[in-house]
């Protein structure tokens, strides 16, 4: 009797498990394609055509390896990355990492609001209207605790990122050339192209994503038993990230590059698409940018405030009241207001801001990665689930390459002066 009943439930349960777990990787992957990412991919496509598409392949591998490590750490320990770093790395390193994370959080959120402002301008809405309204909505959404519902809605909306596929195809790209440039990448070594490569990798693998990934895994209560589902989810998430990036680059490469149009912002790309791919493509592009920007503008300040509080032992979480978690709400609101405020300053120096937040990301990423590699190889923390040889090889390899890239990012601007 009992058996029959449980069996019938089993199918539903398997589906439920699947949907529950098909989460962290896909959410993280979707947040990854934020305004900063879209801008960088557009710039790369417009300036170098199909030339830099090959960078997505190593980015994909590194992203996959890093996120798998995050998921494994979250599953085994049930602790956030911020917790683990604080408990094992000492307070000074923790302080430096989170100071960096706070600044890059503000910088990145500013980029998101730039995305909101830019995309709405395509539809003819002034930034002095769109940015305050969006800021207020995002704030209410989180503080009033309807964030979980919002996350789902955003996830559905983030499917609109696939509209870039439409934009790209409308641009009638040369598929043969795309194939050739991926198989035989021609790397022009100039300071400018190097900087672009660094930007592409840096925006795909942002440091705060590692914290975000791990806490999402914990929140979903995943277990080692579900490990295979989790890996599948991560792969899907990484594929989404890379596929969207690919089509943005193709869209801009097919239309803007042959005509020699240079752009500075993602908004320019949306505007510039109009004459070549039609009004619809331009609006589709702008809509995708708008959704991606709001999605990340909701999650970034929230996540940043949360991780800082987690590391320093302040109460945090949107289920807490203002008085219970004052530091958390002050931080969250502060990040939101500062970032939105910067955008509203007439003639704000947006390009230096996005450059500097990329620089902070660049320095922070190897530090976070090294901490992760040390943590995940500790038997005391991970038990039998420490890294295998291959994961360690790719992990440390990525660290070395990223350190080299970040060092290059820091040194190149000095040399080019």
């Amino acid at each position, binding site marked *: 009797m009992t058996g029959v009943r449980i069996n019938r439930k089993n199918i539903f349960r398997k589906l439920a498990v699947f949907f529950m777990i098909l989460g962290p990787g896909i959410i993280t992957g979707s947040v990854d394609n934020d305004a900063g990412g879209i801008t960088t991919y557009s710039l790369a496509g417009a300036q170098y055509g199909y030339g830099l598409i090959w960078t997505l392949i190593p980015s994909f591998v590194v992203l996959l390896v890093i996120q798998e490590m995050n998921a494994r750490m979250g599953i085994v320990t049930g602790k956030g990355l911020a917790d683990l770093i604080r408990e094992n790395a000492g*307070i000074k390193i923790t302080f430096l990492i989170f100071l960096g994370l706070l600044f890059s959080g503000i910088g990145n959120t500013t980029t998101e609001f730039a995305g909101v402002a830019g995309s709405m301008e395509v539809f003819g809405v002034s930034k002095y209207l769109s940015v305050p309204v969006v800021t207020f909505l995002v704030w209410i959404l989180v503080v009033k605790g309807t964030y979980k519902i919002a996350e789902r809605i955003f996830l559905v909306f983030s499917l609109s990122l696939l509209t870039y596929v439409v934009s790209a195809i409308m641009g009638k790209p040369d598929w043969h050339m795309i194939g050739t440039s991926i198989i035989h990448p021609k790397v022009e070594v100039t300071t400018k192209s190097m900087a672009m490569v660094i930007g592409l990798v840096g925006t795909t693998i942002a440091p705060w994503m590692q914290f975000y990934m791990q806490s999402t895994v914990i929140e979903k209560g995943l*277990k080692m038993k579900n490990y295979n589902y989790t890996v599948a989810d991560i792969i899907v998430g990484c594929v989404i990230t890379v596929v969207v990036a690919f089509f943005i680059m193709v869209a801009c490469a097919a239309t803007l590059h042959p005509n020699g149009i240079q752009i500075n912002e993602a908004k320019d790309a949306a505007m510039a698409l109009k004459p070549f791919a039609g009004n619809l493509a331009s609006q589709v592009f702008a809509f995708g940018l708008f959704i991606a920007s709001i999605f990340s503008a909701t999650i970034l300040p929230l996540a940043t405030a949360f991780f800082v509080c987690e590391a320093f032992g302040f109460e945090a979480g949107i289920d807490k009241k203002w008085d219970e978690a004052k530091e958390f709400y002050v931080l969250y609101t502060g990040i939101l207001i500062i970032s939105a405020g910067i955008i509203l300053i007439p003639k704000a120096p947006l390009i230096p801001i996005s450059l500097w937040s990329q620089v902070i990301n660049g320095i922070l990423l190897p530090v976070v990665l090294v901490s992760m590699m040390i943590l995940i190889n500790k038997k005391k923390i991970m038990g039998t689930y420490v890294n295998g040889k291959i994961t360690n090889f790719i992990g440390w390899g990525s660290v070395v390459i990223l350190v080299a890239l970040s060092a290059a990012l820091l040194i190149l601007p000095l040399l080019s002066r």
Partner: protein
Amino acid sequence: MTSFTTFYLSGIIGKEAFGADGDAIGIIKDLLINTVPSGQNDPNSQLVIGVKLKIGKETGYYSFNSFRVVKAREMLNVACSSLLELKKSEIDNGMLLVENILDKQIVDLNGRKLVRVNDVRMVTLATGTFVIAVDIGIDGLLRRIGITMPIKRVLSLFKISIPTKYILWDDVQAIDFSNLNIKLSKSYAKLHTLHPSDLADILEDLGKKSSTSVFSALDEEKAADVLEELEIRAQIHIIESLPVDKVADVLEKMPADEVADILDELEDDKAELLLNEMEAESSQEVRELLEYEDDLVGSIMTTDYMSFSGTKTVEDVLKELRLRKPEPAELYNLFVTEKDEKLIGTFTLRDLVVAEPGTEINQIMKSEPVSLYDDQKTSAIAEIVSKYNLLAVPVIDQEDQLQGMVVVDDVVEDLMSERRTKKRK
């Protein structure tokens, strides 16, 4: 010389200890404190008994009795008169302050939540060195990072002072004993003062390893209460990480309906394993409940209820209650049954208390009671509960036989969420 010196743990870790002749002996790596108190409020429970010293390349544990911390011109000095190595048993019974307390999460017993330790406040008296309190404030954070002075100077311009936040050592409970062979039940003794709901909240916030070790240190009654309060995800984690026999013992102490809810979420094999391990009587009840579909009244009813024959006197019933010592929820509503367990009436504790001892239950019961059918949809409960203001509704089958009761505690969350969704519409 002053009679006492207060200092912070961070102030002496990494410092050299000096011998009587003024020579450096070794670097202080950690302090060991007594964790097995002989009784309540034993001042020795916060006594520093040992120190981990790095001498040359060797690290060893030495008795702290011969050490003194003194402050001279705002400088902390650790003086040592002789080096006495500690026995293994003494080390195993102690707790390391840096390893297990500093930067770790501990339980604030008054605030009933987890806090992170930024520093530890200590004192040296004539009788020894003691832990006074843990520092969880921003002040401690800045001191550890080493930027207290510049920040204080800037803030003093605006007349802002940095808030300090201490919790007395008696009011905290360390959690992380991962690397010691301590007897856990004794180490977590202070947690027993917490309410099961608070303990459950804390367990949910802990890492996987710690939550399992704290849970397994609880006695079965407390463990059952805590398990009942945990979120389903934490319940599953605890059940899957403990041995089957231990879990079965805890489940036996829980109401059958709660057990059924948990087993429903587990995998079939595991649920079957647990049911087989449980005593036959408890597992039978659970199996019966498991047969009900999720949306039927039967799935959320409890089978722990009290029913009496109508011919019993008030005196008899009170006697039986005293004997059986039922859980509070079982007293929300008391039932009267005929032969075949047919429900014919209900009465409350109030009816019982105000009646004369010799009165028969038939006289005080409400006949034709409001009831639910076990195969009715759960959505019917809300209306009945609110319409008749009942704390517990009897559940009967199609033959009018009493099967169990639905307690308001178990449905209150569903009721609230239902109201909320209605409001949204």
